[in-house]
């Protein structure tokens, strides 16, 4: 009995000691199981790579799996804020989950740094001083695709996206920068896997190019079926359907496709070279843009912690706003609504040895902010 008491005491003391040691607690809620797990795994791995490199033992990261379910994410967030007492939260991949979690978290004084989702509402009317987006506003990559299509002289594009808020944002973003006509505009079912009917419509429409936003498995299905259909119009899309995680599953069907991204592994800067080499060494695979976003998010937090303690919220916020960290994207700064101002590049899918990957061929938009900053009153 006495032995057990001593053990309990020892555990309690060591727990206290650990709590005393970790003065910054970061809560990460991301998708680690179910259909979209590849994205969450990449964000987590990129994030943890940066934290481990920094070698700071005063930072504790709590990681939880939201299973891509908004209600689970909300529960986890409550638990992290109320009982774990985290200072900073991050990790959410999907816009609908971000909308469910972020406003409540920032209202309770927690800093939230988004490594992926950038819904327009959080960039505009519902922006918050404690909310930072380290990836992009949702429209950005689509805007760059529209700009590229115009620059290439496409005059009659067929566009399609799933019928849900991010899909509508995508087509809106594309049309904002695209100057030509539309040969057709289709909203597909979210999660649809067969695109034979849409491809037949594309073939019959007389379009000169195709733009599509179909993230994850939907994009894999579309591209394979498109390549097999014999329609050979040029295809443009955002990076989400061409990231490192899914390119191998698409295979040769994606070769030559142009896609837009704020990052690529061949961006020539020291931080990126270190990141790409470090990620490959630690995890044995090439990093994706999601991994780069996780890595940048962690480095932004680390840079701010160098300057200010997280308990001094105003100083810490100012340190985040300054964004003085070596981003793997090269030049990076925050706009007035805490969303990135950055270059969006155009990449082409190529084959390097046995691996399908991307290379940068042009800059789609230079130092692009977002269309909603004016609506944000902080």
């Amino acid at each position, binding site marked *: 009995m006495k032995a057990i008491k001593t053990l309990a005491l020892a555990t309690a003391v060591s727990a206290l000691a650990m709590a005393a040691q970790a003065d910054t607690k970061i809560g990460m809620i991301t998708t680690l*199981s*179910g*259909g979209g*797990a*590849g994205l969450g*795994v990449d964000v987590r791995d990129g994030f943890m790579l940066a934290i481990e490199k920094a070698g700071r033992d005063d930072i504790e990261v709590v990681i939880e799996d939201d299973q891509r379910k908004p209600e689970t994410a909300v529960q986890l967030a409550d638990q992290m804020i109320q009982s774990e007492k985290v200072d900073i939260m991050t990790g959410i991949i999907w816009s609908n989950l971000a909308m469910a979690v972020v406003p409540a978290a920032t209202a309770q004084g927690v800093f939230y740094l988004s490594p992926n989702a950038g819904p327009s509402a959080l960039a505009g009317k519902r922006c918050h001083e404690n909310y930072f987006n380290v990836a992009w506003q949702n429209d950005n990559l689509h805007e760059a695709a529209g700009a590229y299509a115009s620059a290439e002289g496409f005059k009659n594009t067929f566009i399609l996206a799933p*019928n849900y808020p991010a899909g*509508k944002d995508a087509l809106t973003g594309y049309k904002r920068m695209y100057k030509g006509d539309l040969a057709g*505009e*289709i*909203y*597909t*079912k979210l*999660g649809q*896997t*067969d695109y*034979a*009917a849409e491809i*037949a*419509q594309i*073939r*019959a429409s007389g379009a000169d190019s195709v733009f599509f936003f179909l993230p*994850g*498995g*939907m994009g*894999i*299905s579309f591209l*394979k*079926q498109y390549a*097999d*259909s*014999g329609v050979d119009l040029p295809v443009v899309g955002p990076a989400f359907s061409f990231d490192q*995680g*899914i390119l*191998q*599953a*698409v*295979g*040769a*069907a994606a070769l030559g496709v142009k896609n837009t991204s704020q990052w690529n592994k061949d961006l020539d800067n020291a931080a990126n070279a270190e990141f790409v080499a470090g990620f490959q060494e630690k995890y044995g695979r090439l990093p994706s843009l999601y991994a780069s976003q996780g890595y940048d998010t962690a480095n932004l937090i680390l840079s701010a912690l160098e300057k200010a303690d997280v308990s001094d919220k105003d100083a810490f916020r100012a340190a985040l706003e300054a964004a003085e960290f070596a981003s793997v994207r090269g030049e990076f700064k925050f706009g007035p609504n805490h969303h990135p101002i950055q270059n969006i590049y155009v990449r082409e899918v190529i084959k390097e040895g046995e691996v399908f990957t991307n290379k940068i061929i042009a800059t789609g938009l230079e130092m692009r902010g977002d269309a909603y900053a004016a609506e944000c009153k902080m």
Partner: protein
Amino acid sequence: MSILLILEQVLNGLQFGVMLFLMAAGLTLVFGVMGLINLAHGALYMVGAFAAAAVAGLTGSFLLALVASLAAAAAAGAIVEVAVIRRLYDRDHLDQVLATFALILIFSEGTRWIFGSFPLFLDVPDYLSGPVSLPGGIEYPLYRLTIIAIGLVVAAALFWLIARTRIGIQIRAGEADREMIAALGVDISKLYTLVFALGAALAGLAGALVGAIQSVQVGMGEPVLILAFVVIVIGGIGSIKGALVGAVLVGLTDTLGKVFLPQFFGLFLEPASATSVGASLASMLIYILMALVLLVRPSGLYGGST
């Protein structure tokens, strides 16, 4: 809209329907013969696709991949039946739903554990890739034609199996009266395992065939499972014929609906809202069809009166 485009869309609908039939056939047999609601049927579809992708990656042969998908899904089905499902026949439907839902989670996370979180690569073999010209000038992918052919052959074989063979007689008898057939000396538990494995093999084949033109990833089975349930409700539970007719109906309704509804609304709405409203209504169309069928024939098109 030209006649050719409509014909091409009809082919697309037919191909989708035939694929649904492969899923629905096993589901309707298991439901009809054993009275079991098997939510894990989609997991067996996923097992087939992953087995095919793994074998195609190792050997490069698409035929071997198809064989592997049949074998892996049938084996997984038989193991699951003996280990779990067998205990559920006498329970009520809620217990069955709970247990088979647990199986979905186990299969999904098990697959992720073995193959990782990223989608696998499985492609159409060279000799089936690319489009062919059909009479009338339709350019149609050869692979999709092959799926239609395989589906129709499987359907014919199933009809033959059910109507003409001894096993078929036992299956039909088991459907009608399970105590009586047991009393006649048929080993009912072996029969159940066989039916379950057969249904699983068909689901696995569907997964492999479709995996080549879609993405082979964890959770790929569940959306198809929902459609397969719609098919067997429309067709009548337990009826292979009903499954075939229901599957083709659902395939055609879904495909033609999503093509023509937005254009129909485009006649009197502005383009942006027409596409949006049309797409939303199109995704409801098969459920509306199901409701209409149930209104007229409460036990489905070919459902028994029991």
